[in-house]
């Protein structure tokens, strides 16, 4: 096999892994805090992508405006969903899961109703492509990788050192004790929903600049997000970051060996393997969030 093919796939894999990370954090944190399996998280991502499509389909510098619009919009939607629906399911997390199933139907079909099922393209912020030998480095993908790395550095630092971050980790460890220590747990949960939604919207906006989008894509990305969350250990942000990288690379290797059409099965195989060998995930789950 050609070394250029390997490098190319590794580079593409890294950019896709960035998007998986952005989606998975919300999934894993919401689960860690509330025990809710939220399958509608992928739809938040698609809402972000479509918000970008509405505001800035032509790309270029306007992309930044579109991205901000997407983040604000999805942040508001997440806020409304948490206050209006998920708040009432905290006692029985399985109800939160069922509500998320209903939300998939609603959001997916609203998107279909307005934009039909056909795929749409959004132009990227940067369209330059650098070449080294047979390697083609898209500047937009580099942008995605760099911005995601920045987001996660900031996020990791905030989670570790800021007051809100400590409160968040305490809530994930033990909701009751956190309440007794004076942490406003309901507000932490609300913040997690909003923050997770905003990160997912970022992922959706990034996705829209490198692949055509369609209303049905949310489900397939939420599966990847859960695969990442499970492999990393449910509730563990650090684990999710490692797992997203692994999944991106595994998919790239799969494509490099010429099984591109099976790419989506890789995440499923990884999940089964993980459940059989090490069900608590690479790093331990909720008990040890970061």
């Amino acid at each position, binding site marked *: 096999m050609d070394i250029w093919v390997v490098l190319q796939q590794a580079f593409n894999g890294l950019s896709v892994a960035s998007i998986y990370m952005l989606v998975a954090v919300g999934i894993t944190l919401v*689960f860690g805090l509330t*025990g809710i*399996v939220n*399958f509608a998280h992928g739809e938040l991502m698609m809402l972000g992508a479509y918000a970008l499509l509405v505001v800035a389909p032509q790309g270029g510098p306007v992309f930044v405006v579109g991205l901000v619009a997407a983040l604000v919009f999805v942040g508001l939607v997440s806020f409304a969903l948490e206050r209006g*629906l998920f708040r*009432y*399911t905290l006692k*029985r*997390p*399985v*109800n939160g*899961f*069922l*509500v998320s*199933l*209903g*939300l*998939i*139907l*609603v959001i*997916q*079909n*609203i998107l*279909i*109703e307005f934009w039909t099922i056909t795929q749409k393209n959004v132009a990227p912020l940067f369209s330059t492509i650098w070449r080294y030998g047979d390697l083609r480095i898209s500047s937009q993908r580099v942008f995605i990788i760099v911005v995601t790395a920045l987001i996660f550095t900031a996020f990791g630092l905030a989670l570790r050192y800021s007051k809100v971050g400590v409160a968040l980790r305490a809530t994930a460890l033990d909701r009751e004790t956190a309440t007794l220590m004076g942490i406003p747990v309901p507000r932490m949960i609300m913040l997690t929903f909003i923050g997770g939604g905003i990160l997912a919207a970022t992922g959706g906006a990034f996705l829209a600049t490198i692949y055509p989008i369609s209303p049905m894509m949310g*489900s*397939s990305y*939420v*599966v990847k997000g*859960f*695969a990442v969350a*499970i492999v990393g250990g*449910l509730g563990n942000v650090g684990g999710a970051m490692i797992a997203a990288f692994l999944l991106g690379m595994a998919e790239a290797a799969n494509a490099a060996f010429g099984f591109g*059409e*099976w790419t*989506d*099965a890789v*995440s*499923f195989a990884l*999940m*089964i393997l993980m*459940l*059989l060998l090490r*069900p608590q995930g690479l790093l331990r789950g909720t008990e040890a969030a970061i």
Partner: protein
Amino acid sequence: MPARSVMLKGAAFWLPVLALALIFPQLPVSGRSVHTGVLICIYGVTVYGLGFLFGTAGQLSVAHGTLWGVGGYTAALLTLNYGVSFWLCLPAAMVMAALFAGLVGYPSLRVKGHYFLIMTFAFSEIARVVALNWRTLTNGDTGLVLAASPDALGPITLNSRVEWYYFTLFLLVVAIIAAAILPRIPLGRRLKAAAQNEALATAAGVNAARDRVVAFMISGLFAGCAGACWAYYQHFMNPDQFGSGPGIEFILMLLIGGAQSLSGPIIGVIVTMLLPRVFGFSATQNEIALGVIFIAIILLMPKGVPASLGDLLRGRLRAKGRAA
């Protein structure tokens, strides 16, 4: 309540319903109504399988929308590639769906927590993508066309809608009877015990994980049977017909009617199927409406509409009695 009065109550509900179902095609109804009747019976079989899994084992699965796709594709491929008769395809489809259920259930049901839910959802999405991409086997998004009707089995022929209606109604009755019996056999009692208090059940010698996998496989049999009928009745099978979408709809049908009573699932299926016809919604509008109704039911009437309405009525009567 003594067993006999339960049986009498059951008979008082089911016998008139069955009688109505039997004479339904003879009434002056349109062909489209009979068609809806067939779909209700086919969906009903799957939803009763799901109802057994949820009501007895306490597990919800999104995978049933895909397990029935497995059944449908099994039947279609066996017929198209090997000329196998429908009457052999049907059991083969059931077995195949049960095997896939075992494949998904074995790794995820051993582990405590929400892994099973996540795995059934992942399985649904992945299976759909594989069916789209594995063109040599599944013919991609074009799907498979099953032009032929099932051959006659003795006096049974399935050429017309009405014949399909009676055949699927028969399957539905079998499914309902099975769903009534399964919780009462030892397996069902062990499942119920484990669902209520797993630690206690395990201490009493119940292998809860294994029983749950078996329960999931049994409910897969229902889905496979329905899928094979669906493929033959519709004459085609393509990846859009399964995946998490139908899986969510089956859960919705189950929970609208309520999973705890035997009549709940069929009420849910009928209501869900008639909704677009009553309101004249398009397919997407219908899905949006179903999603909204579903969320409202989960938050406001978690026991299902009939049971919650019953509670409400009883509450009213009691209040009146007190006032008087």
